């Protein structure tokens, strides 16, 4: 069926090619499975099967997109006409300046290879997994009042064709295991979570030690009940990989997206070639990390995925580009043109963005710290590419005194200005984690898979804020 569709789309692009400067088509086929257990109750089994086709047309420097989930030839042609009409409606009123960079044209077919396809695994095994995982977590302590465990897998196939002759097929599978635990004692309630997964087959799930994972999570939620708060202020901050990854992604990464540079929305504007960080800090966006949730073979403009060193030993090397930003800035795309799905526009988006590992062991970093806080597990940060402000809340933190983790803290958040933080990075660990997640850009509904993570990183001075009662 795909072959037929591919041929039909190629012919239709040809048919409409005289009406636009450039046309590309993305068709996405997505199937996903999920099942959850809350406490001991299995909350149903769920499968979703969706497909959508989106046409992007460039007319006089303006983009129009038409999309439909109706795969009949008439509907697809209607979507072509809508894309072109929309682009023309803009062109006649607003006038655009979009120009795409010249890129090599590919015909290719790529698939993430997995040992065990999740669709070949009996549903019964997945049910037993979430039930068992749930039981382990709840059995760690009687104060755990609520526990939810979720397993999900998906298969995403994307077809890309354009009026330059590109024709690319890629298949990206994924598996996930997620758990949250709520602990309660008297009036106090605390919660913790764990998320594991990426572009793997079911073998990744079978390799997990759910006993160890479950115990760790259950203990963490309960421990937080007796966590204390401290007075905020400026101090040394040691970030675990998930927090350092949030910094790399939210503050540095977004500011290194070339559209933010072009829109004067970035504090990194005009700094390529300049030393803006300490020698310790190298930041990479790598769309080729095997298994990582933010990886792909080609971006949504048919440009191959790449590993880009954005900041090398403190020196800013490059921005991330789509064909559109590369066209304006006279460079090549870095393969960062991504869209949530074929209904939505392409933006410059990150993939797997992290601080490259250094030479310290995480233990050495703590031992070497006289007074500060160690923050673990980011609970959501917010980008501020314009001002370069960084703020992230951590699920938990430890007070460090004379090289030892002394006191468990809750409701800690850290903040500072990116350019200050980059200069004050004085130790980078050799450990490394990547946690799957989604990155939003623009507003509601433009999410793409990414990972957040990296090594343990120490910053000699940051603002520590403390919420809570």
């Amino acid at each position, binding site marked *: 069926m795909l072959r037929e569709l591919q041929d039909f789309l190629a012919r239709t692009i040809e048919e409409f090619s005289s009406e636009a400067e450039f046309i590309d088509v993305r068709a996405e086929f997505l199937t996903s499975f999920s099942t*959850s257990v*809350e*406490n001991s*109750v*299995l909350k*149903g*089994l*769920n*499968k979703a*099967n969706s*497909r*959508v086709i989106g046409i992007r047309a460039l007319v006089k420097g*303006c*983009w*129009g*997109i038409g*999309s439909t*989930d*109706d*795969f009949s030839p008439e509907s697809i042609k209607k979507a072509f006409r*809508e*894309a072109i009409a929309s682009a023309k*409606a*803009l062109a006649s*009123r*607003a006038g655009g*300046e979009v120009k795409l960079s010249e890129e090599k044209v590919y015909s290719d077919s790529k698939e993430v290879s997995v040992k065990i396809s999740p669709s070949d695994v009996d*549903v019964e095994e997945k*049910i037993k997994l979430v039930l068992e995982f749930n039981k382990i977590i709840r059995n760690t302590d009687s104060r755990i*009042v*609520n526990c939810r465990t979720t397993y999900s897998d998906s298969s995403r196939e994307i077809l890309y064709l354009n009026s330059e002759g590109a024709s690319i097929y890629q298949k990206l599978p994924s598996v996930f295991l997620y758990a949250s635990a*709520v602990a*309660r004692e008297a009036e106090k*309630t605390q*919660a913790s979570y764990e998320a594991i997964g990426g572009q793997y087959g079911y073998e990744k799930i079978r390799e997990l030690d759910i006993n160890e994972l479950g115990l760790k999570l259950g203990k963490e939620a309960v421990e937080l009940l007796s966590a204390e708060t401290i007075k*905020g202020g400026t101090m040394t901050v040691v970030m675990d990989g998930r927090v350092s990854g949030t910094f790399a992604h939210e503050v540095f990464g977004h500011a290194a997206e070339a559209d933010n540079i072009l*829109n*004067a*929305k970035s504090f990194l504007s005009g700094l390529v070639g300049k030393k803006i960080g300490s020698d310790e800090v190298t930041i990479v966006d790598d769309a080729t990390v095997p298994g990582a949730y933010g990886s792909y073979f080609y971006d949504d403009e048919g440009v191959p995925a790449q590993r880009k060193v954005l900041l090398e030993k403190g020196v800013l090397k490059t921005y991330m580009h789509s064909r559109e930003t590369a066209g304006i800035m006279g460079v090549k795309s870095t393969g960062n043109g991504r869209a949530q799905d074929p*209904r*939505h*526009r392409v933006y410059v988006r990150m993939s797997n963005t992290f601080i490259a590992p250094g030479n310290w062991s995480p233990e050495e970093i703590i031992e070497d710290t006289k007074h500060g806080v160690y923050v673990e597990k980011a609970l959501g940060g*917010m980008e*501020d590419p*314009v*001002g370069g*402000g960084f*703020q992230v*809340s951590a699920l938990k933190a430890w007070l460090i005194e004379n090289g030892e983790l002394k006191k468990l803290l*809750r*409701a800690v958040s850290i903040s500072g200005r990116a350019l200050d933080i980059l200069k004050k990075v004085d130790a980078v660990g050799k450990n490394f984690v990547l946690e799957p997640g989604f990155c939003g850009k*623009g*507003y*509601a509904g433009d999410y793409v898979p990414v990972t957040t993570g990296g090594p343990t990183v120490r910053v000699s001075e940051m*603002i520590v*804020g*403390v*919420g*809570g*009662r």
Partner: protein
Amino acid sequence: MWAEKALKEALKEADQAEVLEISSSFRRVLVENNKVVYFETSSENSLRVMVVKEKRVGLASVNSLTEERIREAVQTAVAFMKTSRPDPEFCTLISPKPLSAVSEIFDNKIASAEPSEVVDYVLKAVEKAKAGKTVITQGEVYLGVSTLRLVNSEGVDVEYSKTRASFSITLTAYGKSGGSESFRERSTIYWEDLKLEENVGELAELAHKTLSPEKIEPGEYTVLMAPDAVSQIISVIAFAANADNVRKKRSPWAERLNTEVASKQLTVVDDGTLPRGVRTAPCDGEGYPTKKKTVIEKGVLKTYLYDYYTARLMNTESTGNASLSRPFPAIAATNLIIEAGAKSFEDLVSEVKKGVYIPRLPPTFINPITGDFSAELRQAFLIENGELTKPVRWGMVAGNAYALMQSIVEVASDKTQLGSIITPSILFEKVRITG
């Protein structure tokens, strides 16, 4: 038109079944750097089937509807139902109930909008930003139409159509010491209520006024929050009042019914029948009629928000707060309204000797279980001796959303419909701001 077919097919094997069919279309215009860059048009038809037998639940959803794809989805759901484990708490799907009479949830102007009209509407806002010497660095305007049909084996059969208009705008003013970024989003049923141009004008003014902020002195302040900031703080109400969270002890308001959970100044209503309310509908996600109820009256918690599934387990009536998500339970607030107070915004400002006015907070994660949060101050002003004075920045509001609700001094008489939250400005005392 597919819903009955799917239901019939499902009932060949299931004791009970529910089908949700949604057809939707949208137009979205994107602005970058004061240029209108993208125009998207999209349409979709999707269907979800839920089947139940001996308390075992199977679910499948599908789009791109064809007879074959729907049959496959039903078969998948049925197969899942057979392998699943019983949900001991599941009792039954609901039987038909009289629907709520609701009005003004569909705007013909959105349904019939020509692409050129939409583009012109957005261009006018861009002109407004330019005239105010600002740049819409990133913006989007969305117009959507959807028709929803919910049927179940017990006879529920509801169909209604809704429209939605929304915008999200980031607008920047540039000065000698850098930029100041304003952000706002609004969501309405009627296009005319969106008032994009007016909002852009206000955002431009705010961005200019906050171009040269001073560093705020850490300390405890009386804080006046505008509706955009208030909405973030009070969004935890939807979590804490959710009966499922209460029953499962995730909510700090478990066992707090008829006790004081907030300052006497606070009265909160959840109204699923509000004319022009973005979450207004004749029934909730289970098919139960929507209702208007007072959740907090003068600080006292009066009711939780229930779906039918949870209400039955807690020996009470549904409040019509089932959401459309599955599996059960699925509870959501509808239109959450903070009742206005007597004094105007200006009166409140004039009563503050030393405080901070916060037009908005950056999107902030508030842990709904604990209420803990800290949010960076990005655009804020000092209030000195009853007057708004200089802009301030580089501090963090650190606190607890539930504790903040206890420290409300006054609720202003102004009222803004942000989307599903409708709120006035609110004055809080003893708010900690760190450096």
